[in-house]
């Protein structure tokens, strides 16, 4: 049983690059192109790992250690995520707080590595990243509080494994509100449209991509892989929240979970295809809106 629990992190480590491939295929479909293969990121990672690296003369050990710290944080954060009723390998009361702070540490390392180059572009990206993170984190915790109110406070695995069809009948509104709030967080934290555009590097309005301008070779591979793991983490949170796993038989949970992940990726692809990016000044409003969704859910729960 314990060994079985490791299947989820292993799946995440193996399949997460595929998820970004799916998004790109959906976007290509909307644009009427054929698009790259869904396996493209695997090829890219393999290619980058074989390359040599180029470092700026302005940099220090910080940029050399940054990618390792970021990847370690993301890889460990996946061990906290459950898979339906199959508990995560690591679960304890309050594990989701650690999850949020592991993402925080990864962000801190990325930002410092960006400032290490001394480039004003990367400074801009870093400045925006920390601004949006300070607004996104309260929103995440407020959403979690709705779950805590409903199921009592325990490990993430225990809380989400209790979501069933009955939960949806009695408190579907709450789950929808929190689901929407966390989906906005997914878009923000993973630098997707409408907050950021993962395709362009050179505009002055970039956030995440501009922070990783000066990476190359194996470092860039680490960063890209960590980004795909981060996407997996947020998507898994949304899927665990929305899919009533408790009502499914154990054998169905894994396939349904993966199907849910693919569905979230398609949704991200659709959002990216039909929306334009927001003006930078509008993004705090989106994030505060996302926090308000969770706050409304809390009020609904308390009134009801």
């Amino acid at each position: 049983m314990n060994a079985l629990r490791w299947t989820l992190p292993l799946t995440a480590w193996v399949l997460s690059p595929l998820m970004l491939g799916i998004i790109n295929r959906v976007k290509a479909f909307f644009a009427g192109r054929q698009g790259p293969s869904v396996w493209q990121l695997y090829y890219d990672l393999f290619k980058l790992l074989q390359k040599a690296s180029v470092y700026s003369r302005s940099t220090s050990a910080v940029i050399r250690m940054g990618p390792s710290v970021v990847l370690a944080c993301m890889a460990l954060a996946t061990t906290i995520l459950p898979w339906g009723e199959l508990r995560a390998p690591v679960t304890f009361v309050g594990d989701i707080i650690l999850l949020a702070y592991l993402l925080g540490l990864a962000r801190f390392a990325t930002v410092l590595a960006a400032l290490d180059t001394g480039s004003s572009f990367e400074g801009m990206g870093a400045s925006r990243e920390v601004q949006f993170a300070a607004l996104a984190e309260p929103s995440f915790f407020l959403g979690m509080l709705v779950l805590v109110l409903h199921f009592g406070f325990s490990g993430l695995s225990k809380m989400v494994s209790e979501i069933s069809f009955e939960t949806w009948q009695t408190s579907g509104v709450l789950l929808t509100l929190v689901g929407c709030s966390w989906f906005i967080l997914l878009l923000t934290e993973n630098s997707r449209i409408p907050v950021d555009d993962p395709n362009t590097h050179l505009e002055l309005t970039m956030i995440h991509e501009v922070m990783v301008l000066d990476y190359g070779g194996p470092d860039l591979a680490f960063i890209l892989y960590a980004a795909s793991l981060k996407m997996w983490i947020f998507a898994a949170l949304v899927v665990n929240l929305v899919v009533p796993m408790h009502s499914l038989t154990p054998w169905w949970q894994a396939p349904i979970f993966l199907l849910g992940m693919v569905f979230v990726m398609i949704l991200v692809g659709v959002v990216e295809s039909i929306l334009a990016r927001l003006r930078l000044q509008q993004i705090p409003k989106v994030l505060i809106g996302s926090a308000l969704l969770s706050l409304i859910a809390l009020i609904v729960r308390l009134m009801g």
Partner: protein
Amino acid sequence: MKDRGMEVFILGCLIPLVLGAFALAIRRPRIAPWVAAFGVWLGCGIAAVPVIRALVGSVPPSLQIAWNMPGGSLTFGLDGLSAFFCLPILLVSPLAALYGCQYLAHEKKPLGSVSFFYNVLTASMLLLLAARNGLLFLVLWEVMAISSFFLVVFDDEHAHVREAGWTYLVASHLGTGALLVLFALLGKQANSLDFSLMARAALSPTMAGILFVLAVIGFGTKAGFIPLHVWLPEAHPAAPSHVSALMSGVMIKTGVYGLLRILTMLGHPSAAWGWTLVIIGLISGILGVAFALAQHDLKRLLAYHSVENIGIIALGIGAGLLGLAWNQPVLVVLGFGGGILHVLNHAVFKSLLFLGAGAVVHSTGTRDIDHLGGLIKSMRGTAVTFVIASAAISGLPPFNGFISEFLIYLAGFSGVRADAPGTVILAIAIGGGLAMIGGLAAACFAKAFGVVFLGEPRSSHATHAEEVSAAMRWPMAVLAAACLGIGLLAPAAVKLVLPAVQVVCSGSPNATSRVWEPGVPARAYEETPYGVTANASVTTAMASLMGVVQISTVLLLLAICLYLIRRYLPRGREETATGTWDCGYARPTARMQYTASSFAQPLTDLFKIFLGTRKQGTAPEGFFPQRATFETQTPDAAREHLFVPLFRLIDRALSPVRRMQHGRIHEYLLYIAIVLVLLLIWKAGSR
């Protein structure tokens, strides 16, 4: 055999005093600080023995000496709460003293007095924590305030230092004024100034409320609750850095200690007290870090972060008080536990940050972040310890700041009851508030570390920086190791906090918690329903902390492994060095880097209604712009809009009284005589 713990402790406090006085008499300026620092090391080493024994659960030592003072008695004691608050002093004070010897080595002026007052400050803080009599407490409180005032004005040839010292002195004494009233009222109710008798005073709820407000004002001024924090951003930058480390890391915590000590005497707390502290905590936490973001003086920035961390501590204590009021052991244990543990954690990383800032100032001669940059190349050791402290203060794992914030989160979330809206509001305050404070603190320290240590030097100050000497580096290394050590030994650290939490709860005459007093055998307490729940929550929290520690350890190992893999992966392939990618612009300069002000600008704009940042400058004009300037200033809002107008008002109201003050000594003698005669008449009349 009689326990001599208290005598040993007092001996430990007297040694720094004696050697400090000796340093005062030494003529050769180079030796005086070393003699005084030796006294601090010796004294703290001796005092550590009874403190550690008190923490691991032996009977708390106490001592009473006769004192020929009405209402006063030389009563000392060392319970779990006092002993825990001694820990940061015993750790930080010797390290900062050693650092100070080197830091002041280039000074031309005599160093006897600064060394003496440093030792007086250390000794008075230790004795203050052990004092068990109101009068003794106030005397030591005053000694502490005045000795730290003399330390703040060390560079008194500068006008701004004198002004900062003046602000500190006034603020400190306004706080003490509230404490005088507090102890007078409480002493009158109890008919004694001894803490043990004051704790038994029967207080009406109104009286208890008044005393609580006085304690929040009096101790909050020292601790730095907004809006009483005005002295912190003035005094910390003005003082020598090792003194700022001691004051910001340790001294302001005596305010927290005083508040907790008074809470043990006020009986069962009302929920309103808890809410007061939660609100103060939120305001101090969020606005403290917002003001810190807007600063570009490194030490001023750190001073505002003290306000932020005091806010986090107040949030934890507020949650604990609400737990007492609502009779919810989980809130009590985890709220107080997290708040008190954060006292130690903040002492470790904040003193480390001030020492790091001091090393930067020592080596570059400027505190302005926007003039620095690229120091990691010339000051490697300082940079490594500074980045560890930055991660710790931002509450990031695997360092110690995360542990105490984690406990406070646990308190908020575990206390949630769907049928009690109060608990949900508390959880929103803690969850949303701490998350926001953490995010903003990470932003601020990404700025502080990033702009000071990374990138390219922005001025000649930074170009010519050199690493500081070993006597300054080692104290920082020890504190950095403590940041990681407490993070990885979290369950042990929490065990040290629990006795302190028990003392804080002992004041609540709640039937369920009365048994939770020091001295009562653990078994009797564990069998009450309250004790069972409290113990269960401790057990759960310990299990969670074990999980956190495991993940933290694996995180460290994994990051190191990945780094090694990454390092040896491109074996044989060439590593190229080039310029930072500049979008094709041919002549980038270091001045084009993002500065601290530009980095923080989006966030300070979000808080602009509170900050009132003033922007001045001339924009570039025309096709071939010649000159452009830009400058921002963020003065303290509480000082500008609350205290300056208030003091002006008081000044105007009292100006008629000024006629009494002529500077003629015989008139003053007359005043004194009149007062004495009136006192005699009053005393004789009341017989």
